[in-house]
């Protein structure tokens, strides 16, 4: 790619943003936090994947999905199934009536591994499945919805129903899924203990690495023609359609992309937390993930990361010091962000901090640069159909 092409894909401000985020996640946090807190940050970052997907779907595409937990869960469960199979080797499960199958299957009188668990013996298959299965699922939902021009509020509520269905199914089919307890007690990856501190460090950096990969993809989408089309669709869908674009296909694509991000986040979650349970599939976590995105700024891919970090940090701190009060704080945050700062942290940053930063850079480099063209598009209207 030519230098100019690269510059247009990664303008200076974004480059600075990438660098600052990398500095924080790779250098500052690992050096300043103990492994317990760093592991928490790693967990928060897995939500950032979901929030990142939501920035593309909701901020750019105007599609608000209240069922991102479904994809987070699918990714997480795929990973958990692989780890659970490894943890359930015939030696480890010798006391069961059927050794070699996960313990919860044994409790439910299953005597052999169900067919859909079989391929999860392979890590390659698992890794592919983590991305492909949620994408296919999102594709099916997307085709059914967007081809029929379902959007906005309808889409939000239908995704919510999907989340409800999947939760009930997972809980009800406990012989196959682990039920409400989820898939727990995951120990090793190819014989390597994933519960040790070293493993936690490794997974943290893996998580950060994957996050930057996804951020890169998101940046590419954002700066490409696709990104501009998404914004155009959000603002005036019919006009884009009349210009000869198949609006549905773009929406389907960005929805699939968002769900793939969420699924990667889910897999990272399983690795770092050590279990997966249906509580992440439901409606409540799905809506919470939307708020991470909204707090960070629904138009900023970096905002999504900071949003996820800040909200979760606040939640942990609040519930440690004032357990009875954190729901008030969360509720106030929802309302405050929506009413007072619709562009979230990123909006505040662009408005107040960025000009100063640019001045500083300009003074430092001796060059003046015009940043107004690069500003994140300020939101004017809410996307979506009535």
């Amino acid at each position, binding site marked *: 790619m030519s230098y100019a092409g690269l510059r247009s894909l990664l303008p200076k401000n974004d480059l600075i943003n990438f660098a600052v985020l990398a500095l924080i996640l790779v250098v500052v946090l690992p050096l300043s936090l103990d492994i317990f807190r760093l592991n928490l940050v790693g967990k928060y970052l897995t939500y950032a994947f979901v929030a990142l997907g939501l920035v593309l779907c909701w901020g750019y595409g105007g599609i608000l999905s209240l069922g991102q937990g479904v994809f987070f869960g699918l990714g997480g469960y795929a990973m958990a199934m692989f780890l659970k199979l490894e943890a359930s080797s015939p030696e480890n499960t010798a006391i069961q009536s059927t050794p070699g199958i996960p313990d919860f299957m044994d409790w439910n009188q299953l005597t052999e591994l169900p067919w859909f668990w079989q391929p999860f013996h392979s890590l390659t298959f698992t890794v592919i499945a983590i991305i492909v299965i949620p994408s296919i699922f999102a594709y099916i939902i997307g085709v059914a919805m967007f081809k029929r021009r379902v959007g906005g509020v309808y889409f939000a509520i239908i995704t919510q129903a999907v989340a409800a269905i999947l939760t009930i199914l997972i809980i009800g089919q406990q012989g196959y899924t682990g039920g409400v*307890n989820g898939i727990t007690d995951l120990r090793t990856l190819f014989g390597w203990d994933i*519960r040790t501190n070293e493993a936690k460090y490794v997974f943290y950096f893996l998580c950060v690495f994957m996050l930057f990969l996804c951020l890169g993809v998101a940046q590419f989408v954002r700066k490409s023609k696709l990104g501009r089309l998404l914004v155009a669709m959000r603002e005036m869908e019919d006009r884009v359609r009349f210009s000869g674009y198949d609006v549905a296909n773009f929406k389907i694509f960005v929805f699939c992309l968002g769900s793939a991000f969420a699924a990667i986040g889910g897999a990272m979650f399983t690795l770092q937390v050590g279990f997966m349970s249906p509580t992440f599939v439901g409606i409540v976590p799905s809506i919470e993930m939307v708020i991470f995105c909204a707090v960070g700024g629904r138009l900023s891919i970096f905002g999504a990361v900071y949003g996820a970090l800040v909200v979760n940090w606040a939640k942990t701190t609040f519930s440690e010091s004032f357990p009875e009060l*954190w729901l008030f704080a969360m509720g106030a945050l929802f309302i405050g962000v929506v009413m007072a700062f619709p562009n979230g942290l990123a909006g505040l940053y662009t408005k107040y901090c960025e000009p100063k930063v640019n001045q500083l850079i300009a003074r430092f480099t001796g060059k003046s640069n015009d940043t107004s063209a690069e500003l994140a598009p300020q939101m004017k209207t809410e996307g979506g159909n009535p």
Partner: protein
Amino acid sequence: MGTLKNAQAGLGGRLPSLMKGIASAVAGATMVLSAAVNAAPATSEVNTTGLAVTDDTVTVGILHSVTGTMAISETGSVQAEKLAIEQINAMGGVLGRQIEYVQEDGASDWPTFAEKSRKLLLQDKVATVFGCWTSASRKAVLPVFEQYNGMLYYPTFYEGLEQSPNVIYTGQEATQQILAGIDWVTKEKGAKTFYLLGSDYIWPRTSNKIARKHIEKLGLKVVGEDYYPLGHTQFNSIINKFKLKKPDVIFASVVGGSNVAFYKQLKAAGIDMTKEKPLVLTISVTEDEILGIGGENIEGAYASMKYFQSLTNDNNQAFVKAFKERWGDDIVIGDVTQAAYLGPWLWKAAVEKAGSFDVDKVREASPGIELTTAPEGYVKVHPNHHLWSKTRIGNAKTDGQYEIVYETDELIEPDPFPEGYQ
């Protein structure tokens, strides 16, 4: 020699705490004596693994949901654990050390439970944790406790199929609760047919599995088995199924908000439980749940569990009195609340038997620990970390209390992995 020196230094250093122990234990002279004797060991002796034990305090953790959907159920457990800790402190504490607690909120969210248990064990270095309520939260924290070698006192009656060296289960496992109940209902009430109903998750399903095996072993019949999603609020269809199948016994393990809806609708549909046609036998409704259901809506149902507030023994009367003094007169105490109350006492007994706060030593000392002061009567820790306990049948009354109609003669042995019932 070294130990003697340590002990002397320890005794000297312990004096302030000793004074405090004496001051707070004015109530009973014997207590003062035991506190004085127990206050002797030095911190370096009773704590070799770096737990949060100082010369006059020991820190423990309380980990329950005080927010979210489970807060309804877990509040009682928190209150019971705090009461037990306060009472122990008033008696001079454990090994001469006052118990301090760090309370964390699991927020009805399983990863939060895991996260908080990690915090309690790694950051706060608590000597033990009293907590968890649902099976899911226990399953989530279990690997953490096993990895960092913590100790958890788990209060809820649960499905069994678990026996961790790092958990003491102070509630009943499923067979203890269910088998006695079914035996009683067949023997005393001549029940022949059963309908099994539960919320759709692991505890009701496992419990019903055990119930079904036992019923079939007795040569009786299960005429139906049904599950509804957690939080389901419409039970008219299942009530019609009852009317069609006419079971002698409805064996119910519905939980949470569904409970309220189920019993209200059962009553409204003209099934008078006091007539015992069909008879309702539940394993999930404690006095706590009746508060929400309303005594008049569940009058006549039978419950099979190990503790009811209406137990008349002296231990229980003292416990109920203390509980009401501490937390208010209108409070009720259910099975789990009592089991949560046992936690700190069992831990104290184990620590004193071991003469150390070290988790490994406490674990070693735990089997065989007896508690003659338990509100439910007498309990004993089995080598499998569950409790020997009696099972009782209560008949629900309009005032929201159970009248105890039956009590097993012997303590029932806990059997978390029942042969042939899985």
